[in-house]
């Protein structure tokens, strides 16, 4: 399977990947539970309120956060707005085409969104200015720059780092108007969701599949864990199948792995 249209893999290559994994080895000397080399750098786009650059192996993602004023949704008049968008820009892969977001870029945005929203990472109530009339809108824009597999984890790590990095002008509310003060304040963050994506290759589950591994895998599972170890989002993709045991094992792997990755993000966003 491929999560996006990719140049197909030769059968021989897929076979090599499957055979190696059956003996617990991967093409780049990783174990089934290793992430590739991870680099996170925040504050790279000064004009944005917050930003983060993530390199996960050769996958490269840039996330920008902008905070602006807007109207609340009618059914949640006291909540600020979070909106996550993902662009699979054509320079990131030979098979990304210019055009409106396709199902892959929309799925990517929605999975990253779910992690932040369901864990209530941003306290949206604190972004209300005048109920029903005016709120702050947080735009999280995920920009994929180089696709070498596992866009979801790289994007989710970047999104969390970027919202942690984000600063907005300090303000107070007088007569339902925003009066800006001196200084900058962070966003109201209260949780730190981490997505862990696994690929099913042969009959094994491997964490952080590279592009080649994605082309050889039959199913993909993302489990997002929030700071207390609870699951706040899950997404399975692909035409393959998972057994109940595999699903349970995957959640265990995610719970373990996510604390390690959470520490990496917190360190980078300091």
């Amino acid at each position: 399977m491929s999560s996006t249209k990719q140049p197909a893999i030769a059968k021989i290559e897929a076979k090599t990947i499957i055979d190696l994994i059956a003996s617990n080895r991967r093409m780049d000397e990783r174990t089934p539970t290793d992430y590739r080399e991870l680099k996170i750098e925040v504050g790279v786009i000064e004009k944005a309120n917050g930003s983060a650059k993530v390199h996960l192996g050769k996958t490269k993602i840039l996330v920008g956060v902008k905070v602006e004023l807007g109207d609340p949704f009618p059914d949640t008049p006291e909540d600020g707005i979070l909106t996550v968008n993902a662009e699979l820009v054509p320079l990131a892969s030979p098979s990304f085409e210019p055009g409106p977001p396709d199902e892959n870029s929309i799925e990517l945005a929605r999975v990253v969104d779910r992690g932040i929203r369901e864990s209530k990472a941003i306290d949206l109530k604190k972004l209300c200015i005048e109920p029903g009339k005016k709120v702050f809108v947080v735009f999280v824009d995920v920009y994929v720059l180089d696709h070498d597999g596992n866009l979801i984890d790289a994007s989710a790590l970047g999104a969390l780092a970027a919202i942690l990095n984000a600063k907005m002008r300090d303000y107070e509310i007088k007569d339902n108007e925003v009066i800006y003060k001196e200084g900058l304040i962070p966003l109201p963050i209260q949780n730190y969701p981490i997505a862990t994506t696994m690929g099913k290759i042969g009959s094994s589950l491997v964490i952080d599949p590279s592009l080649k591994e994605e082309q050889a895998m039959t199913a993909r599972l993302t489990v997002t864990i929030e700071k207390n170890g609870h699951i706040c989002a899950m997404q399975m993709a692909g035409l393959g199948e998972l057994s109940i045991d595999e699903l349970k094992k995957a959640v265990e792997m995610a719970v373990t792995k996510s604390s390690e990755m959470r520490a990496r993000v917190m360190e980078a966003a300091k």
Partner: protein
Amino acid sequence: MILSEVVEKKRLVVPGEQLAEGDYLPGENTYKIDGKVYASRVGLVDFSGNRVYVVPVKGGYMPLVDDPVIGRIADIGMSGWTVDIGAPYPAMLPSSETFGPRQPFARTDLSKVFDVGDLVLARVISFDRTRDPLLTAKDPGLGRASSGRLMRISPAKIPRLIGRKGSMISMLKGETNCQIAVGQNGIVLISGHSPFEENLAMAAVSMIEREAHTHGLTDRIREMIDKSRKSGNVEQKDQT
């Protein structure tokens, strides 16, 4: 005729850089205007008599007639297969150029010979830029590759991997006990008796790709292989 100043051999040049002036012929990756020869690609400049050319540091694969290539079956048509050889043009392998069915058959028959995703060893029999390259798989040693470790390296480094009169590749095959098929399009297929020897061969190929432009490479490869055999681990030098 006085030959004017030229840049020194093996200097790194960029597009638009002047290489020579006067009675020189513009070779590969150069062009001549108003008596001056300029580079058209990034690479190392070299001379062959009064022909000046540039060996590109990077670049894709452009097919040449008689090139051995290794490609992936991308599609099956009425009378043959479309093969991805990593060139700007898709290659065609007609069924008449294999030992399979000769008449245009239903797609299922052709897929029994080569299916989508199969790797095929072939040779370019014709190509000019007005038509896609044509391949044959009839020569001895050509045809479907059913197993092995696949590597992709820069096509610019293939000549170094093969070596003068095949000296480098023969040494590699001998030292690692592996079968190594090399496509001019940058694909290398390695098949050995043990994963260790396959990994050894792969490490050697990577080393050649990284250090192609240097001297003493053959000796360093032999040294790496010896060290690895003694320690039982593939001894890769640090990669910067």
